[in-house]
């Protein structure tokens, strides 16, 4: 057993006091055996604090830190694996201990050892308070145990009724929708003689797959746009523009042997 070393270490670090009587020593041992029973380092600290048998507000955080570090040290010697949480707390408490013991460094910006200790004390007190509150809560008279609800509830029948709603605005909008429809003169009529670039492109895209040999561009004019001069003009212009677009896309080649000669196109492979 390392009990002896543990005690010695403790007293060395501590100077005076520490774990002196048998009961406290037993308690310290029990802590180690029970490490699985603790809900984290804060819980362990709280239990240790309770053995100081003083108001949590007056608990000596320095004392607690030493006790905790001794515990971790002993656990390590006993090859008890401690969860990371416990080790993080140990490292922090070691830091806190040094802060509390050494004179404050005026160049240091962080919170003072006292501030850190005060917060830890607050956390412990708060956890303790929550535990007591939980116990009080669970000790209350409870539904289904001390008092009871109606054992024979009666059914409440549900009647569902649908209410339709409409506002005056809905009505006006509905009517406006209809009237607007009447006033609206379809546009397509004005554009009968127009063959748009979009239309030409769409038509060309479908057709160029078949242009393996040089073909005159006029062959691509859509039906119904070849006789009427107005329509033919529109279709020629848009088809030519569409052909240029396809050249730009690298889909076809265009050629014209001489000025005013027919323009020919061929699929680019």
């Amino acid at each position, binding site marked *: 057993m390392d009990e002896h070393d543990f005690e010695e270490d403790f007293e060395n670090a501590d100077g005076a006091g520490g774990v002196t009587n048998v009961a406290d020593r037993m308690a310290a041992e029990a802590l180690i055996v029970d490490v699985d029973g603790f809900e984290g380092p804060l819980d362990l600290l709280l239990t240790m604090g309770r053995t100081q048998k003083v108001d949590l507000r007056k608990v000596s955080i320095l004392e607690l830190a030493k006790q905790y570090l001794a515990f971790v040290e002993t656990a390590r010697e006993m090859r008890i694996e401690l969860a990371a949480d416990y080790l993080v707390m140990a490292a922090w408490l070691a830091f806190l201990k040094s802060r509390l013991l050494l004179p404050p460094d005026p160049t240091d910006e962080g919170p003072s050892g006292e501030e850190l200790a005060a917060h830890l004390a607050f956390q412990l007190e708060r956890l303790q308070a929550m535990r007591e509150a939980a116990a009080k809560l669970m000790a209350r008279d409870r539904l289904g145990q001390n008092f009871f609800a109606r*054992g024979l509830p009666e059914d409440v*029948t549900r009647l569902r009724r649908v209410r*339709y*709603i409409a506002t*005056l605005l809905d009505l006006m*909008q*509905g009517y406006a929708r*209809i*009237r607007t429809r009447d006033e609206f003169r*379809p546009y397509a009529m004005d554009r009968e003689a127009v063959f748009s670039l979009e239309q030409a492109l769409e038509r060309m895209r479908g057709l160029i797959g078949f242009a393996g040999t040089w073909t005159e561009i006029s062959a691509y004019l859509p039906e119904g746009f070849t006789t009427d001069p107005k329509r033919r003009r529109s279709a020629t212009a848009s088809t030519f523009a569409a052909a240029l677009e396809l050249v730009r896309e690298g889909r076809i080649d265009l050629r014209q042997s001489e000025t005013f000669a027919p323009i020919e196109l061929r699929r680019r492979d």
Partner: protein
Amino acid sequence: MPEDTEDEHESLFAAPPMAEQERMCEAILFATAEPVTVREIESRMPHGSDAAEALAHLRRRYEGRGVHLVRVGDAWAMRTAPDLGFLMQRETVETRKLSRAAIETLAIIAYHQPVTRAEIEEIRGVSVSRGTVDQLLELEWIRFGRRKMTPGRPVTFVVTQGFLDHFGLESPRDLPGLKELRAAGLLENRPPPDQMPSLGEGEDDAREDGTDAKGQDELFGE
């Protein structure tokens, strides 16, 4: 402390006072999921209790209240007073928006009344389903008006007082006219393409009685 109470009574070798017994019966009857027999109640009460008497007191106490003590075979139970049964119904009202078809139909009736079904269809450009008209009739927002003096003497629809109440109008003349609709930004000159008229649908119907839908809107002199 439940046990204490019990122990106290038991240790006194005396039944609790009748008022206390009454309370006990009350609690047992309230919390038990089934009607309870006198014997069963008594077996749960402290020694020496007289459940039958306590129940008689309790029954009187609940006379005329919202809850009664009733006998079910040889058992007892608490039941809500029969005259309050209507409270055990919960009416849930669901509000739903009126469909677009119904709104449009209603609007046409409101703006053009009295108007026949064929006229409504001509204005809407689509046929009006029977369900739509029935719904509006059911809501009591429209009713049948005079028959029209045209061939076939078709019935007409007009809006009701209920309609005016719902929409907060004093008379159909209070409906905003086209100019006001336009001023409110509700009438645009060019609707988005998805509102393009689907001309032709249901038109067959509309022409049957040859009524011209135009010229009815004295309301909307533009």
